[in-house]
């Protein structure tokens, strides 16, 4: 065993490790809170029980909210993938100098404070009948998701050799056929990661939802928000754990598929 003298480096490393632990550890406090049997929240739990999960599943309000969240997230993903992918393909065709401006324009919804976007959408959705609807919410969430799809797809497009598409069309392939056989397989990883991130962003989103979900399209985060503003209940901890589980599972799935992809591309080289 090598013995370490206390150096500034070692101190910085320990401090860094503490910061990293501080980043993750507190997030999971909702999990022990959700498995306590008593009707108040206790960490660590005294008697383990899944009874609040049962209560969550039997509660119509929570189930409707969960269902709304899933519908909104799926629709958001579809909208963001459509708009973001086409825009990324467009960016690829622009001269290099023009690209930053166009990308900047698509990314601009990320710069404007979300509270401003939220009240602006609240103001206009009421006049055009999209307030409190799933499509209205999905379009609102898509504002925040399109940029990530664009960035992810652009990254995979940059790795694609443009000569491949040229060769295909030179050999007589029609543009749609080139897209299906050359471009689409190449940008697939970008589509997948952009799409999953869009889904998670929408599934987690609170501020825009608070303003435009209304009563009829209330999502899980909105319901959770309303609940914890009044009191902390074990069911709220269950709902948080459900949101947490969804995101962590999707995160692990994307990491695994990314690892498999790099492994297989290393093999083929």
């Amino acid at each position, binding site marked *: 065993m090598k013995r370490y003298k206390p150096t500034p480096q070692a101190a910085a490393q320990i401090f860094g490790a503490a910061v990293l632990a501080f980043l*993750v550890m507190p997030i999971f406090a909702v999990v022990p809170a959700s498995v306590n049997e008593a009707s108040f929240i206790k960490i660590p739990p005294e008697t383990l029980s899944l009874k609040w999960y049962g209560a969550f599943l039997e509660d119509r309000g929570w189930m409707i909210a969960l269902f709304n969240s899933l519908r909104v997230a799926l629709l958001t993903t579809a909208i963001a993938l459509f708009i973001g992918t086409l825009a990324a393909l467009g960016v690829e*065709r622009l001269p290099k100098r023009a690209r930053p401006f166009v990308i900047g324009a698509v990314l601009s919804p990320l710069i404007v404070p979300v509270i401003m976007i939220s009240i602006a959408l609240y103001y206009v959705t009421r006049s055009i009948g999209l307030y409190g609807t799933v499509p209205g919410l999905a379009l609102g969430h898509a504002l925040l998701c399109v940029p990530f799809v664009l960035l992810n797809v652009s990254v995979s497009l940059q790795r694609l050799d443009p000569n491949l598409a040229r060769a295909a069309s030179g050999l007589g392939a029609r543009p749609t056929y080139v897209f299906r056989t050359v471009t689409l397989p190449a940008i697939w990883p970008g589509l997948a990661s952009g799409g999953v991130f869009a889904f998670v962003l929408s599934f987690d989103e*609170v501020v825009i939802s608070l303003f435009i979900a209304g009563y009829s399209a209330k999502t899980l985060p909105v319901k959770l928000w309303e609940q914890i503003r009044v009191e902390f209940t074990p069911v709220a*901890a269950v709902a948080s754990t459900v949101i947490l589980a969804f995101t962590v599972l999707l995160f692990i799935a994307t990491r695994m598929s990314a690892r498999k992809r790099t492994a297989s591309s290393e093999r083929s080289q």
Partner: protein
Amino acid sequence: MTWAAPSRGFRGRDQRLGRAVMTFMLFLPALIFLGIWFVWPLGQLVVLSFQYDGGAFAAYHELLSSEVFRTVFVNTLKLATFVTIVCAILAYPAAWLLTRIKGFWFSVGLYCILVPFWISILVRTFSWMLLLERNGPVNNILMSIGITDQPLKLLFNDFGVYLGMVHVLLPYAVLPVYSSMLKVDHRLLQASDSLGAPGRTTFLKIFLPLTLPGVTAGATFVFLLSLGFFITPALLGGPHNLTAAMLIDSFVNERLVWPLAAAASVILLVIVLVVLAVTSRFVSLGSSVVVK
């Protein structure tokens, strides 16, 4: 190339036009979407901000002349500044640690940064509420090791807001710092070492200046995000922890004065744009975003 001479110019222009039309068509969905769903609503809001009783700038005048509203904006700026400084200080050693570890522990470390990005801010904030509660685990630990006899008030005050905001925004600071550290050429550090410079000098004269753009980029992200933050201060703060975003919310949902809400959000946007304009003169924020 002579064989295509007769029709080449004509067909070339035709193709270029076709190509331009195709490129435009690819952007069309994004244009329509951003036009209707982003530019138009924000435009409506800007128009609204000039439609307050008593003249075009009445809403702005009321916001800026009132002691109460000014305090809210000053508090928001103070909160953002504090959170930014703390995040930058915490992010630096964390990012440095990430550059020093490999293999399994590197994955663990990287996931510590990436997982929070994915997890709902609401859930993260709720977790803090449970931890900091009067009878929560933090108070229990503090009492059991004898730091305090009775539960401390950790929630619904400055402490809760500052802690929660730092926690929620810290990942945004770590990633740009980390990517700037990866770009540092290690031969420079070796050269400095071999020329006899003490570690501290190498750090202060070489490593720190080279990684400062990453710190600036990360700090800018944190500052801009915290300016408009709503969820965390609204849940962890007390009645006097009003931020600009909460003020806008109360204008819309409680007091129903849309022009004031619109004007307050325009002021917020102007601050954001000024900060962006200033920092983008020093660092390329775009390149730090793409790493994410």
